[in-house]
């Protein structure tokens, strides 16, 4: 969808545009004509609703399900794995069951393999065919994940791609790139950073970002001067 969403709400900006403002507040509107696939989607959706195969409310509800999934869920899974060795074992054995233990449901009927980063192995995930992504635990993928440069280069020159994210992987560390294609999704379990022994599970979860769970960066921790 091509929804223009200009965020011009600056603090202290009172939106009186009667004094020669050079950048008037644009109305939020769809400015582009729908493309081929937009029209196809609308036509198919309207037909399915018309034939009562599903209702408009079910579509709305599913969007609500998707929107409720964010990287904060994945971060909770990672933090739990860091503090609970038994959970970590179960999670690595069956990623989906591990997440379900924490109440994260897999509405899209995918399986999940959790890939553990170690001092010897660094994992990176990609979907070369489209944009398969562990949506139940991370929500929607970032745009770069869906675009061709990342998808092509992650499997061809992963070390160069990682350098562009500011991540240097030493030569003696094996890089494992997982290309997700069909029913399995992947989540990277990053290494727990040094110096975090005293942190609570919640504080640990706050360190874990989306990119670390895709595998393009490590989890960083800056010890505060006591």
């Amino acid at each position, binding site marked *: 969808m091509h929804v223009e969403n200009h965020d011009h709400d600056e603090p202290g900006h009172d939106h009186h545009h009667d004094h020669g403002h050079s950048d008037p507040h644009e109305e939020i509107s769809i400015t582009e004509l729908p493309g081929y696939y937009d029209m196809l989607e609308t036509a198919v959706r309207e037909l399915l609703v018309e034939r009562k195969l599903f209702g408009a409310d079910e579509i709305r509800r599913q969007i609500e399900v998707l929107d409720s999934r964010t990287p904060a869920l994945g971060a909770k899974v990672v933090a739990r794995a860091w503090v609970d060795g038994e959970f970590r074992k179960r999670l690595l054995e069956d990623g989906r069951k591990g997440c379900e233990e924490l109440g994260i449901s897999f509405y899209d009927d995918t*399986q999940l393999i959790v890939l553990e980063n170690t001092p010897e192995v660094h994992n990176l995930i990609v979907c070369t*065919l489209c944009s398969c992504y562990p949506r139940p635990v991370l929500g929607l993928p970032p745009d770069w994940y869906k675009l061709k440069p990342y998808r092509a280069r992650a*499997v061809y*020159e992963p070390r160069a791609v990682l350098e562009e994210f500011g991540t240097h992987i030493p030569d*003696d560390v094996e890089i494992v790139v*997982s290309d997700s294609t*069909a*029913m*399995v999704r992947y989540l990277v379990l990053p290494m727990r950073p040094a110096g975090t022994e005293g942190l609570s599970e919640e504080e640990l979860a706050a360190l874990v970002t989306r990119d670390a769970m895709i595998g393009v960066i490590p989890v960083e921790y800056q010890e505060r001067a006591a």
Partner: protein
Amino acid sequence: MTAQTIAQTVVPALGEIPDFQVGDRVRTAVRFPVGHYRLPTYLRGKTGVVERVIPTMGVDNEEEGYGRNAGSKGHYYRIAIPMTEIWAEYKGQATDGLRIEVFETWLERI
């Protein structure tokens, strides 16, 4: 495993036992179907090793793409393929590798 001792008389259905086991050497098929396929072209005809049998049998996504699901469940395998097997001029370490889940119809034993 207790499952084995209790259920020795159970006869598994055809296709229920995975064709490949962890450690088996396999090659991906070289064929070029038109339409919905789930083995990327850069991985056709490549040699790898079965790293994991995906525990749940799944529908063949290529069939599912056309609404044909009935009876098309089978095994997916996580296959390990060295980067140097895929790219002749790979810039990285010889130990770097790729992993992908492949439906059984794409795999042949070597």
